[in-house]
């Protein structure tokens, strides 16, 4: 067991329980993050398709807008350019409102064009919150081309507003694209980290602790066995001692009782090897 890919813990039962819990948590988190990543990439693909479509329509819109401007310039003369440029004053008529859209816990900023100049396709048009300022700018641009080409200018204005609508939509998609890109990268990194780093490390730790605990158990078992063996040995020795003791007592008793002792002694003497006599 390598010590590199596991947590540095004391192998005890408590720690094992803690690590096991963490492992379960990591696995659950991995599943959840995987789901999140899937949801994000689903949205991501939708946005990609939409971006391509909107880019195309943006080109069309811009084309018609510039053409409308050319028309207005042709009719109204080059002077209207300066009128428009000079009429810029104070607050913008068209603004974008940002709000957050939520996809699987990721906040995606979205833009919505708003303003007092009613945008084509804008939901409900302007709310007219900047009443007086807008009114003056509106009247200013309304008066542009009063002499010549007013109609063309209004047309041009409409065309540019349409283009702007598309552009805001595109900006919104693009922002969502970038944000989602980041979010997907982060999520994937986390998924991979959980899958390839955290989970194996916890698993290794669990098996390490289990191994250590088993080892301890074996040691304990062996120790007990040794103790038991020692005890048995001691008991046996004691028993033998006692036996021999009791035997000795029996012999003493027999000597005193039957008088067979001297006979035995004689036999014993007969068996004994006499010393050689040397003459």
């Amino acid at each position, binding site marked *: 067991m390598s010590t590199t890919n596991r947590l540095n813990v004391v192998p005890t039962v408590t720690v094992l329980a803690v690590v096991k819990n963490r492992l379960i948590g990591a696995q659950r988190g991995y599943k959840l993050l995987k789901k999140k990543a899937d949801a994000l990439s689903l949205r991501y693909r939708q946005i990609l398709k939409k971006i*391509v479509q909107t880019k195309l329509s943006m080109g069309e819109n811009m084309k018609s807008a510039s053409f409308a*401007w050319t028309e207005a310039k042709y009719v109204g003369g080059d002077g209207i350019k300066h009128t428009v440029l000079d009429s*810029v004053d104070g*607050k913008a*008529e068209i603004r974008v409102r*940002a709000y957050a859209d939520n996809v699987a816990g990721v906040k995606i*900023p979205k833009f919505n064009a708003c303003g007092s100049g009613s945008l084509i396709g804008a939901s409900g048009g302007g709310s007219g919150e900047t009443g007086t300022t807008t009114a003056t700018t*509106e009247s200013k641009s309304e008066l542009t081309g009063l002499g010549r080409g007013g109609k063309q200018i209004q047309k041009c204005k409409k065309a540019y507003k349409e283009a*702007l609508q598309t552009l805001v939509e595109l900006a919104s998609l693009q922002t969502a694209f970038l944000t989602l890109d980041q979010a997907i990268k982060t999520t994937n990194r986390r998924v991979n980290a959980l899958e390839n780093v955290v989970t194996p490390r916890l698993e290794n730790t669990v098996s390490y602790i289990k191994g250590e605990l088993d080892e301890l158990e074996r040691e304990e078992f062996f120790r007990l066995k040794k103790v038991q063996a020692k005890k048995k040995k001691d008991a046996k020795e004691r028993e033998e001692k006692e036996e021999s003791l009791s035997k000795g007592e029996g012999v003493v008793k027999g000597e005193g009782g039957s008088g067979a002792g001297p006979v035995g002694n004689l036999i014993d003497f007969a068996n004994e090897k006499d010393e050689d006599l040397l003459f």
Partner: protein
Amino acid sequence: MSAATASNAAAVAASSSEGSLLAVIGDEDTVTGFLLAGIGNLDARRKSNFLIVKPDTSRREMEDAFKDFTTREDVAVVLIAQFVANEIRYLVNEYAEPIPAVLEIPSPDHPYDPSADSILNRVKHLLGAGNDGL
């Protein structure tokens, strides 16, 4: 990054009590058209949210305007004509924040080249070679 994005979004949401601005960098006709539509704004110091690029406009001015617009709190979308973006391509490519969003728009005098668009390039790359009909 996601935290930064969130705070960014929050900042925009905070400043958008009356909505955020759109900024334009482009040739005279394009800018005038958008001003006609009503995106022009002058702040208290009479600083505008648009830059008209003329043939004698230096690259330095474009850079400054781009940097200014992309760092302003009240700007949510920066529209930049593609020929201007090509001039300061390194800045545009380097820019990776989601807010303000930088959009490359075609201008009447210069044909629009989708392959130069940094975002569209990435989109195309991700969609694969099957969607070449851009």
